[in-house]
């Protein structure tokens, strides 16, 4: 768990991939084309590479995926730098404004934990994302990083990083800590790292945050 105060929030948003994913949804960005999105995220995600790709919008497309979209099975696919260098990273994001502890978005068939378990245990998901990144890495600025991550993955396909990200705008509660995330660790292979983030915003700040951020960027501070 990571706790951030309001002053650190902006920095954190600029650096955290999961945070960006969530923000993308909230901003309800109008995509005239992928390029616009890419350029947006180019600005916003300096610490992450590859740049956020269209599937980062999957939180907004969950319903569609349920109908059987051909997305490769995770909200996020990218690279992550750890102490051993670059590795592949996959992630899931959930948001909730409902005051229940632990939150519903954590459990159930579409819950964060279940989805992280799916990613953790499903090598076809890893491979699907890996292939996709393989296509996208060609000619990109992060192709060398992808290469390094690939080598680790091909030697040991458990050598990947999983992110889980849960955003709430209700006061923190100790039951959140009771979330049985340890179950994820129980079935986790040695080489695989799972990192979970919980972001608690001030009450009722999720809704409309996107507009607020966009407005702030334009200089129309409320």
């Amino acid at each position, binding site marked *: 768990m990571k706790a951030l105060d309001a002053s650190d929030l902006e920095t954190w948003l600029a650096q955290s991939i999961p945070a960006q994913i969530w923000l993308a949804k909230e901003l309800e960005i109008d995509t005239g084309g992928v390029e616009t999105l890419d350029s947006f995220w180019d600005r916003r995600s300096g610490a992450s590479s590859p740049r956020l790709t269209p*599937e980062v*919008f999957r939180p*907004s497309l969950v*319903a569609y995926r349920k109908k059987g979209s*051909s*997305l490769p099975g995770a909200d996020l696919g990218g690279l992550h730098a750890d102490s051993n260098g670059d590795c592949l990273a996959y992630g899931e994001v959930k948001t909730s404004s409902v005051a229940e502890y632990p939150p519903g978005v954590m459990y159930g068939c579409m819950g964060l934990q279940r989805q992280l378990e799916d990613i953790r245990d499903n090598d076809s998901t890893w491979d699907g*994302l890996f*292939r996709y990144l393989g296509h996208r890495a060609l000619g990109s600025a992060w192709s060398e990083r992808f290469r390094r991550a690939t080598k680790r993955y*091909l030697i040991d396909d458990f050598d990947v990083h999983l992110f889980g990200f849960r955003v709430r705008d209700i006061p923190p509660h100790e039951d959140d800590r009771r979330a049985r995330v340890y179950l994820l660790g129980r079935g986790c292979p040695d080489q695989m790292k799972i990192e979970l983030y919980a972001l608690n915003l001030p009450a009722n700040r999720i809704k409309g945050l996107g507009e607020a951020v966009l407005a702030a960027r334009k200089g129309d501070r409320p």
Partner: protein
Amino acid sequence: MNLSTKGLDLLESHWALDAIGQADLERVKTLVRERLAYRAVGGQISFSFSWSKGDDSLLRRVALAFELAAIEGLEELSRSSGKNIELREQAVAASYRVFEIRQLMPVPVKTLDRLFFVLHLSAVAYCGDRWSDLRRWYKDNQEVLEPPSVAGIEWDRRLLYRLFDCWIRLFRKRGWDDLDRIREIIAGLREDQSRFEQGCLQNDSPEQNRATALRLVALYHWAKATEIVANYILEGRPPSPLSSLDKHFDGAIKAAMASGDAQHEVILRWMHSAAWMVVTNSLWWATRAVNSRTSDFVRSLTRREHRAMFELLPPQRAALMEQGLLDQAKTAIVIDLPTSDGKTLLAQFRILQALNQFDAERGWVAYVAPTRTLCAQLTRRLRTDFEPIGVGVEQLTAAIEVDTFEEELLAGDHQSFHVLVATPEKLSLVIRNRKVEKRPLALVVMDEAHNIETEGRGLRIEMLLATIRMDCPLANFLLLMPYVEGGESVAQWLAQDVSAGQAISLGTIPWKPNERIIGLYGAMPDERERAGWHLRFKTLTTTPKAMALSGTHRVGGVRPINVPKSQVIAHGKQKGLGIQTAAMASVMSARGTSIAIANNIRTVWKMATKAAQCLPNLEPVPSQIQLVQNFLRTEVGPDFQLVENLEKGVGVHHAGLSDDARALMEWLAETGSLKVLCATTTIAQGINFPVSSVFMQSHKYPYGKEMLPREFWNLAGRAGRIGQDSVGVIGLAKGSDPGSVTEFVSRSTGALVSRLVSQLNELAAQGQLANLSDVLWKDQWEDFRCYIAHLWAEKKNLEVVLADTEELLRQTYGYITLRNDPSQQQKADALLDATRAYARKLAKMPSGVAELADSTGFSPEGVSIAMSRLGTLKTKLKPSDWTPESLFGESGRIADLFGVMLKVPQLRRQLEDVRSNGSGQVQISDMTRDWVNGKTIDFLAQEYFTDTSTKDQTLAITNACRAVYRTISYSCTWGIAVLSRVSGVDFDSLSVDERRRINALPAMIYHGVRTEDAVLMRMNYAPRSVAVSLGELYREETGAADGRYSVVSARGFLKSLSDSDWHSVRPEGSALTGNGYKRLWEVLSGGVTA
């Protein structure tokens, strides 16, 4: 873009593969081989492989590594060549490897996962040059190809399912109708769009609508690209579809990216490259710059109902598009390609090009094949393919004489034939006697041309090619042969110009029609049953031509053939190798037709009987087999053993069967109706159809002579059917000396060596080179003597011949080879001296001998003997003796003629061979008379070959067949034809009709019928049992019409017959119905191929 060795080498050092590590990569290679073998033959062979838990993950990761290498070059595959060739080669090679592994992986069960898996695998297969393997995978995995139902399905999903259906059709190319359905499906989608699209965009959120809209855009682009590919494959239109394809796939990929649909985007990238490969692999693409005749041919290939063709195999594409097969500047091309089917198509393209090139001059093409069964098979194939485009194909009989009907055919106008199929001996007669006048020989296609190095006919073939070079200066050459290294020297010899000779070596390209397992088998005691035994198969790793699999594995169960152990092992030693071979073939027949080969006919029958005893009855017996059984009952005899064997799906193929029967055995094998085909080693010369497995009791011919490695691999290479078997299995009985068998398999095939050179080398080794003139009379030099006689007959002047000898010899491959090698000058000089000496000898022979030798194919010595012996007959032969009634009547002179023939060296050996089975010369002549007069094989067997002590009817029939189909139809036909020429009868004083009747006599012997009309029917493959009655019907219909004695007219007549016509001519008691006869005729004449 073809799979290349360079591309595969490049992969070895790819960074992604480096990450895996050498040891793991080696492990994967082994795993792939083992799993492929297990999948293909695991039901029959209990492999002793050891697999561990982490193997699946390793395979998956290595497949990903290869895929990454493929992805790096994927875009290059959808661009015109000339860009980054290395990346293209890497992409093809990597895709090849990806398919190798992923084909072994289980197909996901969930619908979408399944669809994407299949599409991805298919695209990978096309990008990796493995469409034939993909087709086999489709065959084995039919259930996963089913498109899901679209009932009640949302519009975007409906589109995807329909597109899946279309691409399965595009990839499998089952036939015109199957592909044409794609156009209907796409048209249907256009109609559906107005009904379903709007509903698909009525989602709650704008993001979802936007994503859906983009997804639909991607799918629409994909659908349009699909339609473009389908139109091109079907019609060859538009001529340049690639830029349109790019436009639509680029649009589709961009839309998929925008919709955030990663999986869709990935599959579209693969489909884009695969679409390029589908187009550039197609027949239309390969022949787009060629003449209209070729376009017509391609159109007819795509539209035919049976085995429609749409695309080329990688070696065919390489030959056509990269190695100059259709380059008119190349006058001699040698193709080294193991698969026979692939070669024939290449030959067809070259034939059409040659006919086009020589259209104004009315050029013709000679297609030469070593055996008459192969000639018949080729004729059927060429006729089926060429008839629809107006290219006439005719076959000359294998008889070494040009009969009266053939004379007429050859002398006819250019419409009578464009392509002539013949044996080397027959073509030699046609060329030397200039039977085709005023029409240039445009091209000679020589199938199985590696026979140029064989002991029996090598010299004859080389001399034929030399004669063509000399007498037909415009002729181009196309030599087809398997496993020949360094074909350039042969091509340059024939081209007479270094730059005009082209060797297309496709035997060494990494692409393979399928994998092969080769090993030695033997029997092992098995204590689980009393006197029990089982088969063990030791896979060999000593040849690069087969998969490197280690271990010794059990095959089948205890006593796979129900004989006691003592019949296969005695005192620890292997025995009963025929039984072991039959057992292997029977066990392995569960996965497709197996061939069991022995080196003698007796063992072949034994193998067939044993195999039939252990196999279950066919339930029901396929109609094809029933047809052949009825044919055998009628033409051979109702109790013929083969009829019973066929009940179990066991056939035989050897010289003790008629041509028709052998052709029907091949047809049954080709159609998959046979489980086991037992054959002699001679099938190596004739087999032109693939099977699932090949097992050999011995790699030696009768009398212990080893097969040449090239001959062995030509035979072994038939194991594994393109598009059907992932693995072909080849086994040899280990016998008592497994080491020597292993060493034999390991031998390389090497370069082609002229038989002329081999014979000189043998002489030199014996220190006899200086005495060449003294040994030139021996049998092995007979063809060389005939060659000199031809020169003599042409020049008729000793001084001129002596002056031209060097030039004459320079036409031969052997002499050129020797002259080009400074260390071989002595041999070349010896040959030159001996040739001149023989020319002087010819000059001293009686007038006309050399000319008669040249026109008949007899050696000058043979002609001299025949003339002298005829002169000693007590009663001179008169014209009236040369009529069918007289010659084949009770008091005819045929016995006298056989007396003469037995003195001629070229005929004596075979005639005496028959005599050793019968009892004296009178019986050969009687038998010939009976044969011409319509007696059945059954009758001849009982009359002349039944051993009263054993009463072995099968052996008697075999001997009768050998006597008829080898000796009578070969030696007797030739002998009678020559004797009629040298008999002293003044043919010029006879009427045209009388001359024609005499000229038809040898053909009557050859075909076993007594009338000219029946000969015409037999020449067109009518079964012998109805040939005479059909001939009568033909005579009734045609009366005295002009052109009645035409092979082509007779074929037209046969084509027009209805079931009831056939019924009206069938002999009483025949097992065949009218419809059966008609169908049989269609099969034998090429009207039906499966």
